[in-house]
């Protein structure tokens, strides 16, 4: 019980932070706090296997995937917070509070007695007990989970996999094509400039600057440009940083 009362406030705060955080990375970190606390609660309640699984699978694998995706994509799209139904947000908060209060009252009225049954369940060992349940009474549910996993993989493939229709171009053909473009249209044959060089940030959404301080539009990936998510970073910002570094002296 002690572990619960120590961890529960943290978990509630982190869960609130998960919902209310403006930045996706902060929300993900709050989620990590919730998951780790949950794992500790499992351990405190005599379920070492669940504890390990929670840490390895959720905190380890799933959580890190979350963060990887957030950092690789690096897109912080501002959510539209306009309400399409007037009063919806207040209504939702009120209903959620009433619902929460009802749940707390209901559970608190009932859960008064001592905890029983953990020792009996863990008698032959925690992992062995789980195995006996999983391959005994719940074997069909366990097998049905296979259908669930196949569906998940198949669904992900259907939604995300682009079947290649044409032939894959060889490296030589790509190079020749680029030079043809250069010869006929004057397109620059090399790579596009990398983002963020000579700028205040080196994030993908910060454009590179030319030596004269002007912005190189093509240095920001096209999807970000299309979504208007290019961070304004021109000469004046560089100057501002320079002024901070050397106060009282104009860098020009």
């Amino acid at each position, binding site marked *: 019980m002690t572990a619960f009362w120590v961890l529960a406030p943290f978990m509630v705060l982190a869960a609130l932070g998960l919902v209310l955080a403006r930045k996706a990375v902060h929300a993900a970190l709050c989620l990590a706090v919730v998951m780790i606390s949950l794992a500790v609660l499992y351990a405190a309640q005599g379920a070492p296997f669940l504890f390990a699984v929670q840490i390895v699978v959720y905190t380890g694998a799933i959580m890190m995937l979350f963060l990887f995706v957030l950092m690789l994509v690096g897109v912080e799209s501002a959510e539209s917070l306009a309400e399409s139904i007037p009063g919806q947000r207040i209504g939702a908060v009120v209903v959620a509070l009433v619902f929460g209060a*009802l*749940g707390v*009252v*209901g*559970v608190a*009225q*009932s*859960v008064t007695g001592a905890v029983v*049954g953990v020792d009996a369940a863990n008698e*032959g*060992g925690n992992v*062995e007990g789980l*195995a*006996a349940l999983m*391959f*005994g*009474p*719940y*074997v*069909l*549910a366990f097998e*049905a*989970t296979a*259908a*669930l996993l*196949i*569906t*998940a993989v*198949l*669904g992900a*493939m*259907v*939604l*995300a*996999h*682009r*079947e290649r*229709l044409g032939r894959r171009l060889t490296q030589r053909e790509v190079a020749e094509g680029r030079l043809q473009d250069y010869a006929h249209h004057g397109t620059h044959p090399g790579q596009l400039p990398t983002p963020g060089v000579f700028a205040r940030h080196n994030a993908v959404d910060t454009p590179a600057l030319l030596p004269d301080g002007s912005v190189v539009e093509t240095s920001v990936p096209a999807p970000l440009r299309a979504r208007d998510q290019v961070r304004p970073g021109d000469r004046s910002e560089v100057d501002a940083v320079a002024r901070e570094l050397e106060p009282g002296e104009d860098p020009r």
Partner: protein
Amino acid sequence: MNEIPAPVLEWDLIAPLMVLGAVAVVGVLLEAFVPRGPRFVVQASVAIGGVVAALGTTIWTATRTDVLDGDVLARGQVAAEGALSVDGPSLFTWGLLLVLALLSMLLFAERRLGGGLSAFTGRAADAPGSSGEAEATRHRLEHTEVFPLALFALLGMMLFAASTDLLMMFVALEVLSLPLYVLCGLARRRRLLSQEAALKYFLLGAFSSAFFLYGVALVYGYAGGFGLAEVADAVASRTQERPLLLAGVALLAVGLLFKVGAVPFHSWTPDVYQGAPTPVTAFMAAGTKAAAVVALARVLLVAFGGAEWDWQPAFWAVAALTMLVGAVGSIAQGDVKRMLAYSSIAHAGFILVGVVGATGGDGITSVSSALFYLTAYGVATIGAFAVVMLVRDASGESTDLDTWTGLGRRAPWLAGAFALFMLSFAGIPLTAGFIGKWGVFSAAWAGGLWPLVVLGVLVSAVAAFFYVRVVLTMFFDEPRPDGPLLAVPGAMTTVVVTVAAVATVALGVMPGPVLDLAQQAGAFVR
């Protein structure tokens, strides 16, 4: 270390599920190994063959179940270590689901309507309207994965209707939902609408699953077990900690009523039914509702039958609201698919009237009346959506109700079939819908719920007025000059419309055999 005893699985009883699961997995393998040219035909044949095989196995299993001794009629037994109850209602629902799925698979396989391509997008990863999408159409790509996905959803529905253990029920709920989320987003036309539908369905469905799971946890806390029989014993014997039970029942009901599509958990229905590809809408509207209603009835009557005075008033309110909102909502719709969605909400209300009308513990009359209603509703729904697939213009299906004006003069047979399904929805005598409504209302009347029955009849009258108005505009108004083209019906859709129309009339004129089957199904076995 203790020896873990090997689980006993009654293979003969769960054979239909095994056949279906195996065929779905084979479908996934075919996807990998069959070349693109013949793949669509192969996948469609395998899926249809698999459903037929599972239907045959279900009939074989049904003939092997014995009538149990006891004061109420019941047959079958609990199988698979207490996870499933292969009893009369389960077997009837399995048969019904497989027949409905067979019709839906024919709609899935229809390629004559969209210029030789199926109703599903060629390459779902392409952004709507992009050059990649055009390229995929030019190469005549088709997503054939829809067949195994639909079979997995069907497997989930069958498990859901039969599970007698809350844990199994949750896994079944996910197995049935996950493929449907994906399928909803795969429409070939109006892809943004389709993707929006899939996302809405996924988010709201995930919420409702979470409610269901929390309810399972609370009920486990109350009863100390997941089996519906254990819960029933606890409900009968324990008097303390009642709030825990009530909270558990309420949360479980949220998850189940969401799948049934009952008010106030109905708001996803119109958007999802409208956005999803029409064959998927037909499959989902008919199949999910059947599976969810049977699962709901099983949970309420088997597990919580002893506490019926606690949950019944809430369900009366839900049933009344569902009928009202569904019927009134369908009047305001200008889109055929949305109209059918609201009508499916209203039907959920009518079925709920029958389900909560249960008297005593066994509820045979309510279960059998609900089963018959689901049959009548499912057949007419699939037929109606098949007709929607046929009324097209240059940009795909023409679902605006205005464009259907005068359809009866240009395509009397097609409009006649649609009118028949509408009349069945309205519950006009000599159609299946009438017998269905008669059944649920008389079950509720026997249970003493006369206010709900009176309300139901009034709402039916309102709905009938609207359905008849649709029929009248189809037949007695002048066709619009810019009206929709009628696609040349492919063999598959023609078969589906014909079968659905014949079944709707047959169930209305000679309901005897199916009614007998539903009544012979008897009570749930715990």
